[in-house]
């Protein structure tokens, strides 16, 4: 059952009826039926606004955006969670952003460094503790390339001067120390944390090797930005770029490192995957170093081929020929995957509610498998994300911005999709409702999903989730209409 625009609008109205009038009026602005002919979203949907009191939002905080998303995956950095111990501990090593190296020797992504604030630190300030902590990290882990101070809420509330500590400590230990003002209460969602982290990279890290020209660059140097290497995503993207003859000199920030980031300025093209979390630094790289950025999409063979051609168009004919050759080489394998899984998945209807780029980026991969996206929404997108989404979604599809748990559950009850792609907070609710579910933040402990290799895994995962026999057994045997279950038991 595909809905047209009127039916979708009506569904939205019916779901909103439950709210008090003022809340309903506010929420109505965040929900809409898709119209692919729209160019600009600011007239028809409101995004990046504070969640209303009394509703359950799926959003995170600025600290999550800065420490968890942008800074977390950088492998040679010790990220200090400055404040009480919980924020750091509960965000430690859960995101599966893979790295190469040895944990505790030259890789620190899965460790939790924290200043473990106590009452006395809130009362008397934590600056001395922070300075001591930085010195300790430098002694214990000499291969740390930089230390970041990720502020948790109390730091902003008590007004500690982490910038002063960072400057002084940087001089003392001779390493980059980055103060990141990502207190959780700032902004409306993790999106501001991305921005704060990007700005801290710009102000404290990026120019570190500007007077060092020992790096030998080639005309085919590119940087991957906005790929966090979840389940190895950046690696399966990187091999494709290398196969067409480009050299990836930096990964931001999955499996990335501080020296890579500082030599990014030698890149000829900046490939931007997650626009939402890294467009800020991409714009800065373009302004300061003249590196143009290009948004690309490595989900599903159709989008990969289109993106490879788009990327190759920036370079000379050899790269263009290579791109065609690589696409042709992978096509038979992709056709085989589609031939295998498409008959099992054809016509299945999917609802997505993820973060900042996936609701639009993975649509192509689902469509390659013959599946249909009937609803998509972002937790923390801005209007420029919706500008890019309208064209990708079919007419009349439901769009929900920062959907509350009530709205999402009501939409699912009414639309009855065959698959939901969202996060861990939604997963078990929908499992209990008897609907197949994949976590699309962390690929549900699978992955990679990027690139040609990733598509094979993606197709297998979707098949094994949707066609899992357990969904036929959601009803207790004695409640079944037929006596089939009883006969088996007897």
């Amino acid at each position, binding site marked *: 059952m595909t809905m047209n625009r009127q039916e979708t609008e009506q569904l939205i109205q019916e779901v909103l009826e439950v709210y008090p009038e003022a809340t309903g009026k506010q929420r109505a602005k965040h929900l809409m039926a898709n119209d692919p002919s729209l160019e600009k979203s600011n007239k028809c949907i409101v995004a990046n606004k504070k969640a209303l009191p009394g509703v359950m939002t799926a959003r995170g905080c600025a600290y999550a955006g800065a420490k968890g998303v942008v800074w977390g995956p950088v492998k040679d950095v010790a990220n200090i969670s400055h404040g009480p111990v919980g924020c750091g501990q509960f965000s430690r090593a859960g995101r599966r952003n893979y790295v190469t190296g040895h944990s505790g020797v030259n890789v620190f992504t899965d460790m939790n460094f924290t200043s473990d604030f106590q009452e006395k630190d809130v009362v008397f300030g934590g600056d001395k503790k922070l300075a001591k902590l930085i010195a300790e990290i430098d002694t214990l882990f000499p291969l740390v390339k930089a230390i970041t101070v990720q502020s948790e809420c109390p730091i902003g509330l008590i007004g500690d001067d982490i910038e002063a500590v960072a400057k002084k400590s940087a001089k003392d230990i001779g390493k980059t120390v980055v103060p990141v003002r990502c207190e959780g209460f700032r902004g409306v969602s993790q999106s501001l944390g991305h921005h704060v982290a990007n700005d801290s990279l710009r102000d404290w890290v990026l120019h570190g090797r500007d007077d060092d020209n020992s790096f030998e660059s080639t005309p085919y140097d590119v940087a991957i930005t906005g790929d966090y290497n979840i389940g190895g995503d950046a690696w399966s993207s990187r091999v494709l770029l290398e196969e067409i003859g480009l050299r990836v000199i930096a990964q931001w920030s999955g499996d990335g490192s501080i020296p890579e980031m500082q030599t990014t300025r030698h890149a000829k093209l900046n490939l931007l995957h997650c626009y939402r979390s890294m467009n800020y630094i991409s714009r800065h790289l373009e*302004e300061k170093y003249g590196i143009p950025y290009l948004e690309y999409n490595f989900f599903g063979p159709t989008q990969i081929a289109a993106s490879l051609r788009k990327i190759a168009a920036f370079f000379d004919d050899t790269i263009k020929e290579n791109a065609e050759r690589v696409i042709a080489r992978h096509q038979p394998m992709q056709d085989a995957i589609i031939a295998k899984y498409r008959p099992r998945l054809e016509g299945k209807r999917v609802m997505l509610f993820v973060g900042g780029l996936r609701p639009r980026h993975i649509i192509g991969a689902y469509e390659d498998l013959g599946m249909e996206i009937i609803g998509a929404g972002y937790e923390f997108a801005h209007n*420029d994300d919706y*500008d890019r989404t309208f064209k990708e979604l079919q007419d009349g599809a439901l769009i929900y911005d920062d959907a509350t748990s009530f709205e999402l559950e009501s939409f699912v009850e009414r639309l009855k999709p065959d698959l939901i792609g969202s996060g861990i907070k939604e997963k078990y609710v929908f499992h209990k409702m008897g609907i197949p579910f994949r976590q699309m933040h962390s690929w549900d402990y699978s992955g990679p999903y990027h690139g040609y290799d990733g598509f094979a895994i993606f197709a297998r995962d979707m098949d094994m989730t949707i066609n899992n026999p357990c969904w036929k057994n959601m009803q207790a045997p004695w409640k079944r209409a037929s006596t089939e279950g009883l006969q088996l038991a007897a």
Partner: protein
Amino acid sequence: MPNVMLRNNAAGELIFYITKKDHEETVVALEHSGPGPWGGEIQLADGSRFYLEPFAQTPKLPLTVRVKRL
């Protein structure tokens, strides 16, 4: 007086980006578009207007500038 970044997109249009608001808009009219002075009154696709102190020459884009809301 918002801080904005001016850049050309792939289609060659001038893009006006208000950093603080994450708001991107196409420029439909620029008072002085060079050669010679570059800047002046800027009209955006959504109808809003801004004023940019003109440059003597066409500057190298992208560029962050301060503009006045009209």
